[in-house]
């Protein structure tokens, strides 16, 4: 015989189960039938290959509620940091291709890891199903507010007398590649002081005058530029990075009138070789941060996920919520950029290897 307590407990459990089922059914019905049925009402593991609070993490958390609504699925972001993002990237690449594991990867880092012979890094072209591009990081060279190096002219003049001193985060990182290849194109020597724990500590070193320059994604140091703490002196790109007033008159590295073309003679390289090296750098940097899934995704699931992502990223609310501007591309375009970057990258290899050898010895 059932007691009243058992009856109430049973009733409570029934209500709870019905509520959970209801939520799931509502989510499933939001997404509708078709290819998205494979993920609707399920939990998608979203791998962030960095620690909590970083740029990728912030972007993932921002995207989460919008994408959940569009897919009718729950998204559980998981930070899998380590080995400069390689552990997280491998966790995505080696997961089951069922549409329930997605994540963000920084393609420039993976392309550079492949170039410098990091065997553990996943193959940037073959190891993922590319679903969308979130954005790209275009670097600027910037000096501290009190530095004498106020323009590219000052910098090249000083570069004739001595090596320019840069603060960098990590040897083998994208910003180190950007510095060494750009310096090579400009025909100046650089000294890298490596090991700063992020953009800010390195920027503080420039602000204090411990180093001459830093080289970072413009968006990550924009507030320091706006606060007159840092002064941009060179845009490491072939076209203007942004319409920001601080970049007006700041020369470009690439393009027909860019600094690389103007300095081609000084670096001892032919104009064609100069253009090829500059193009390789821009292709790798422009490959961007991508949303990816494991390879071998069912075509229907791939279509569903890539479309949902593209629609979500195109949404005005998402663009407004992003802490840094998005530069979105659909799956096909993003993958084409990765392939092009991979094909263009080899000329960077000797420059990078030489720079790493010099830092290590």
């Amino acid at each position, binding site marked *: 015989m059932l007691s009243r307590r058992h009856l109430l407990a049973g009733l409570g459990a029934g209500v709870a189960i019905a509520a959970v089922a209801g939520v799931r059914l509502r989510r499933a019905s939001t997404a509708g039938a078709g290819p998205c049925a494979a993920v609707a009402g399920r939990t998608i593991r979203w791998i962030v290959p960095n620690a909590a609070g970083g740029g990728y993490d912030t972007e993932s958390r921002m995207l989460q*509620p919008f994408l959940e609504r569009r897919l009718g699925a729950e998204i559980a972001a998981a*930070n899998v940091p380590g*080995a400069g993002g*390689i552990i997280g990237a491998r966790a995505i690449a080696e997961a089951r291709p069922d549409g329930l594991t997605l994540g963000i990867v920084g393609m420039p880092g993976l392309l550079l890891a492949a170039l410098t012979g990091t065997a553990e890094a996943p193959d940037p072209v073959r190891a993922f199903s590319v679903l969308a591009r979130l954005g790209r990081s275009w670097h600027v060279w910037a000096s501290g507010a009190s530095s004498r190096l106020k323009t590219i002219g000052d910098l090249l003049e000083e570069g004739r007398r001595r090596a320019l001193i840069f603060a960098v985060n990590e040897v083998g990182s994208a910003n180190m590649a950007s510095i060494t290849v750009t310096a090579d194109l400009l025909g100046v020597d650089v000294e890298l002081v490596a090991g700063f724990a*992020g953009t800010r500590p390195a920027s*503080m070193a420039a602000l204090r*005058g411990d*180093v001459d320059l830093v080289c970072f994604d413009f968006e990550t140091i924009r507030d320091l530029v706006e606060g*007159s703490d840092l002064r941009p002196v060179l845009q490491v790109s072939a076209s203007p990075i942004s319409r920001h007033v601080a970049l007006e008159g700041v020369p470009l590295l690439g393009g027909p009138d860019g600094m690389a073309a103007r300095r081609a003679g000084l670096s001892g390289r032919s104009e064609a070789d100069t253009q090829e090296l500059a193009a390789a750098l821009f292709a790798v940097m422009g490959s961007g941060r991508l949303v990816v899934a494991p390879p071998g995704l069912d075509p229907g699931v791939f279509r569903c996920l890539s479309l949902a992502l593209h629609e979500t990223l195109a949404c005005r609310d998402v663009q407004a919520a992003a*802490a840094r501007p998005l530069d979105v591309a659909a799956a096909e375009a993003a993958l084409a950029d990765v392939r092009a970057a991979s094909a263009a990258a080899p000329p960077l290899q000797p420059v990078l290897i030489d720079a790493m050898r010099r830092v290590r010895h």
Partner: protein
Amino acid sequence: MIESVVQSAWEGLRLVASWPNIVYPVTGTLMAMAVAFLPGISDATLMTLMIPLTLSWDPLPVVLLYGGLVGGATFMGSITAILFNVPGTGPSAATLIDGYPMAQQGRAKTAIGCAAMASAGGSTVGILVLIALVPLMRQAILAFGPPELLVLMVWGLTTIAVVSRGAVIRALIAMGLGLLLAFVGHDPRTAELRFTFNTMYLWDGIGLVPVVLGLFSIAEVTDLGVSGRHTISGRTRLDELTGSALEGARAVFQHFGLFLRSSLIGTAVVGIIPGVGGTVASFLAYGHAVQTSRDRDSFGHGDIRGVIAPESAHDAKDGGALVPVLAFGIPGSEGTAVLMAALMLHGIVPGRALMTEQLPLVFVIIWSLFLSNWITSIVGLLLVSPLSRLTTLRMHVLAPVVFALAAVGAFAYRQRIEDALVAFAFGGIGYLMKKHRWPRIPLVVALLLGGGIELNLHITSQLHELGRLNIWTRPVFMVIGLLTLTSLSLPFAQEIRAHHARRRS
């Protein structure tokens, strides 16, 4: 400028105290306190989980909530340190040196009461220093570069000499082992791999959390089990425990000078420097307490001053730790990194503009943190009796729970099963160290500081080689360097003085 700071401080206080705004920091605090007891959910994890939920909120409630979340977790780590010898957070490791012996003596209530009072008082000093520093924030941060960080970390390492009186050689060996472990993984300067034995797990080095969980929680429970002791306190009933929370709280005022000095070490010396963290603050304060005391022999055996110093420094640090975040957007910890991300997603960008145009909002964070620290301590005091009861739990109940929590906590740290294995391996090492009277704290301090010392030493020496560094023109470096030398030589000087005194008598 001062008038604008005072006005902004008042406006910030008004915003925090008004209804329904006050609900947010209180809720944030209680949430942070609740998860502080759950293994694997750190304050940073909780704050990260809140980002999507608060995305559609206005900036003010977000700032209020996050102020509460930042402050809520700090004190709770000390409770587990006192009760179980398990430092819930890195900085609590200094509290356990005297806090846990107090629990073993049945004085857990006094230790928790003292920690709560020191924590709340310390945070108050921290907030006052932070307010005073607002006009000077930028200059204060810019004064600390790699050379200053280097000497500060070396100063932190010198506290090992202080906490290991009577076993200096063993402490030095344990410290060496800690430094060796700190060098596993990427070389911070060249990115080359060291001692990784072709395992990707070791690329990022050996994590502090699994090591601490193993060395203390697993080792402690193993030792209790082997020793045949039935409970942590040796008592099985609550009324058998001695001391009271009031007695503990009163002790802070009895040692007010020590409390104040430790709070200032936490805020002004350590807090404002990004990346140094509360652990250095706690150990520096503990070392200071030992060095400036005449009767030092009771330290390590349940001396209440060994609880006051680290607790006040640790909580005072929170106010200072906001300085680099707000002035330059430099997060000093994972928690402050998430705080910064949450602020930026709501259009609040740390930096010069925030410190001038949105100063009231800065004070909203500061006052929320202040409120949160006090709520945590008051709730801690209210919970003294039920918490102390945990020291009367029998081993057959306690051991499986602690083992399970340690395993889950280690795994959740980086979602790596290897971390759980490392925790149990260090559990074995910790048990052997305890059994054979080898100090464990030097190993933890060295593991924590080794990477930072190596990195800043590299950068400092490279800047010197490049002619970009003249230490004689860096007053902060000189002052901390002198303090380090004093800290190192003081024990020898005291030993010599004692030797002469013995000869005279």
